[in-house]
């Protein structure tokens, strides 16, 4: 992975920089030994590793501001990090940059039930928010599969999703406000316990900005009343086309399930071998449909979905009769990744989105790619919103397989874009999909995004080397393109 050329001058000043940062974050807040820096050398995308210059663990907003100001003044790059669970390399360190770890920001600051929100520090885990409010029947809706470990600050950076996005939205739809610090060390508050921005929706821009615009130091999220009832259906189909048609028919009937997940045969078998919950082995595709809400609604809609499944050639259909049974339906899906890991040793999780109607096209294309690269692929799919997670099986001990798996993953993502979809549904661009950005955006599109980056971080010190395939100087991006004294389209009459 090509990263920005490290600045030897900065690396040579490591001891001096460590000493200066200790003035801001005393004691163990600055990590400089090789042994202690090692755990930070990669995130959830473990194929890429890089030792950071230093790791800094501030515990107050003032410290964050002072660290950023120091880094700006000394032109030191900064890689913000939450729990390091990113699957796209969003927190991959730089040899000439510090990792700014937010783990010490781990407190819930306020639980406000009357206003239905929680104010938390960014290092609180996603599940930690639900734990703080579940005694009163509330929960925080977005549920990325890493929710036990990933932090709310990381969720804001990546605009994390989960299996309930279609009905309850992504992080961006559930965050009411943030406090963040700019690279200039200015503390800015956006939103709060109220709705909507008073000026430009910079909160909407910050969410999903992958640590390139600022460092989040506080988050206010909305919490929801946990649906009183949830029931699930486990539906087997003779083909993925039938399963796809069933999904379309459910939505056409006006039903928005809380979750709707599809698995292909390889994933079904891997999951069943792993957790033994009674998934049918003789079907080509399996659909888990969860309906949540008030009991009368759930009972009514479960019947509707069951009828739709029958009309779409369902080979089997089980309706959960208890919460234990519902959780058993989910157990296989939730264990799909480790289950696939069991059969192959290594797997590479891809994350793209397609218009749902193109499902059979993308599955056909993946079968061809699987043959071309000689690597099997198991598919799990957030069927409601078109977000695919193909798992490419490979063996890292075999020479060249890692590279083949990555190349195949890139081909799958390009296929998603060709079919009208996008490069990433919830894992982010990071370093992983950075060099594919030009498959989706032309240079002018990307320049409009990069100029927004310049508005926040004109020196490009925050998380450089992520998201954008090329680094441009802001002054160069700001220039209007005037050729020989004329703007574009000289043939059209002007004012």
């Amino acid at each position, binding site marked *: 992975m090509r990263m920005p050329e490290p600045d030897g001058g900065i690396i040579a000043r490591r001891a001096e920089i460590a000493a200066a940062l200790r003035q801001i974050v005393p004691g163990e807040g600055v990590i400089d030994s090789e042994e202690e820096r090692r755990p930070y050398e990669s995130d959830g995308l473990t194929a890429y590793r890089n030792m950071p210059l230093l790791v800094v663990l501030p515990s107050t907003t003032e410290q964050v501001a002072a660290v950023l100001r120091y880094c700006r003044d000394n032109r030191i790059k900064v890689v913000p990090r939450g729990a390091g669970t990113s699957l796209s390399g969003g927190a991959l360190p730089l040899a000439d940059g510090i990792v700014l770890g937010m783990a010490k920001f781990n407190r819930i600051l306020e639980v406000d039930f009357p206003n*239905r929100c929680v104010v938390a520090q960014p290092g609180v885990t996603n599940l930690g928010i639900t734990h703080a409010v579940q005694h009163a029947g509330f929960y925080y809706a977005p549920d990325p599969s890493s929710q036990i470990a990933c932090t709310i600050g990381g969720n804001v950076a990546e605009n994390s999703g989960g299996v309930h996005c279609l009905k309850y939205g992504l992080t961006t739809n559930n965050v009411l406000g943030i406090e963040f610090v700019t690279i200039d060390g200015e503390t800015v508050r956006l939103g709060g316990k*109220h709705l909507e921005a008073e000026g*430009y*929706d910079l909160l909407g821009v910050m969410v*999903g900005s992958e640590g390139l615009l600022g460092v989040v130091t506080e988050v206010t999220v909305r919490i929801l*009343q946990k649906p009183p009832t949830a029931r699930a259906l486990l539906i087997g189909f003779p083909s993925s086309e039938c399963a796809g048609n069933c999904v379309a028919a459910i939505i056409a009937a006006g039903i928005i399930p809380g979750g709707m997940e599809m698995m292909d045969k390889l994933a079904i078998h891997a999951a069943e071998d792993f957790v033994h919950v009674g998934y049918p082995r003789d079907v080509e595709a399996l659909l888990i449909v969860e309906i949540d809400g008030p009991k*009368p609604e759930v009972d009514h809609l479960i019947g509707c979905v069951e009828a739709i499944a029958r009309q779409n050639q369902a080979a089997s259909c089980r309706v959960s009769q208890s919460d234990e049974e519902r959780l058993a339906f989910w157990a296989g899906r939730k264990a799909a990744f480790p289950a696939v890991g069991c059969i192959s040793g290594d797997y590479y999780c891809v994350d793209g989105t397609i*218009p749902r109607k193109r499902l059979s096209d993308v599955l056909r294309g993946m079968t061809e790619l699987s043959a071309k690269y000689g690597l099997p692929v198991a598919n799990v799919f957030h069927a409601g919103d078109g977000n695919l997670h193909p798992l490419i099986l490979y063996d890292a001990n075999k020479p060249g397989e890692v590279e083949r798996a990555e190349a195949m993953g890139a081909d799958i993502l390009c296929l998603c874009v060709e079919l009208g979809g996008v490069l990433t549904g919830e894992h982010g661009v990071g370093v992983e999909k950075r060099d594919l950005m030009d498959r989706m955006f032309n240079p002018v599109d990307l320049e409009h995004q990069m100029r927004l980056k310049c508005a926040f971080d004109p020196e490009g010190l925050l998380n450089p080397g992520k*998201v954008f395939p090329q680094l441009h100087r802001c002054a160069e991006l700001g220039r209007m393109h005037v050729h020989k004294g004329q703007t574009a389209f000289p043939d059209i009459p002007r004012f």
Partner: protein
Amino acid sequence: MTRFRPKDARELAELVAGAGAKGEALEVIAGGTKRGLGRPVETPHQLDVTAFAGIRSYEPEELVLTAGPATPMAEIARTLAAAQQVLPFEPGDWGPVYGAPAGRQTLGGVLVCNIAGPRRPRQGSARDHLLGFHAVSGRGEVFKSGGRVIKNVTGYDLSKLMCGSFGTLAVLTEVTVKVLPAPEATRTLVLRGLDDARAVQAMTRALNGAQDVSGAAHLPAEFGARTLLRLEGPAPSVEARAEALRRELTEFAVAEVLSDAAAMAPWRDLADLNAFAAEPSRALWRVSVAPQAGPAIAAAARKLEGRYLYDWGGGLLWIAVADARDSGAAVLRGALGEAGGHATLIRASESQRAEIPIFEPQPPALAALGQRVKESFDPARILNPGRMYREL
């Protein structure tokens, strides 16, 4: 005053680039219903974008619709209704509040003003439904962002930035929005006679309960002292939930339950601001606060002898103030206090709009950031300059 009417994105880009080169500002207009919203814009030219109209594609099973931004909302609503779908954020028709005829508002206007109705707390706003767009920025360049799928985190979410930018960053040429199935049935509970504090308590009880309330509004005494709570969903569900909610709220009042058309009417009235269309001389404020802070804002409104009503469970107040020197800006913005929130002057006379900050004044660091964002899209400040803040 020249009125330009580009036919396609190429012509539009050329016009904007030409205006930028000369430093001549453009007022961007489609339906023209909300020209009274924002600071008065004085530009040598108008940019009429009505050519960018029409539904380009609509796939009900995919829950997405792509259209030209100048497509009238009436056409969007009609098309969606034929497939039993809606724009879930329930945007109202603000035209009549500004004296424009009903039904002329466009999709693009709704999006760039980030309009949302009573379903906002549950379903989000316009900003939560714009999935992607094509546009011409103030630099005169054609660009796109986002996509045509529901779940997408590829690159910065510029759709959020376009919503609520009031045409100051770019001119939209095509938009893709997320749609949802229309609720099959609706019930509205009406609780009569509650004062503001009790009404907010009742709304909080309902919103924090298990019945999945999709609208919570309070109309004080002068509008009939009614507290409204809405339930939507399949028919058997709303029936049962309405009865359950009625029982849960008996300590506040014995609720009357409205069905179907009668149940939907008050929400349409709220979204369309019908209570305020009749008195165009009154300044109209939209105040967004934490729901529990609603009554404190209402107390400030009473000091101004304002007429007001609550939506969003107490978190949104619409306040109409008779012509005062600053239309009540100091009193209302003073009442926001530490709890935060913002007050927007939605309607006022042209002279007041030139003097009173229309949007909530921002702290210096935030204002400076906003200016740099404006500059990144529109360095020559030619698109609706000064419409939001003087400096933008």
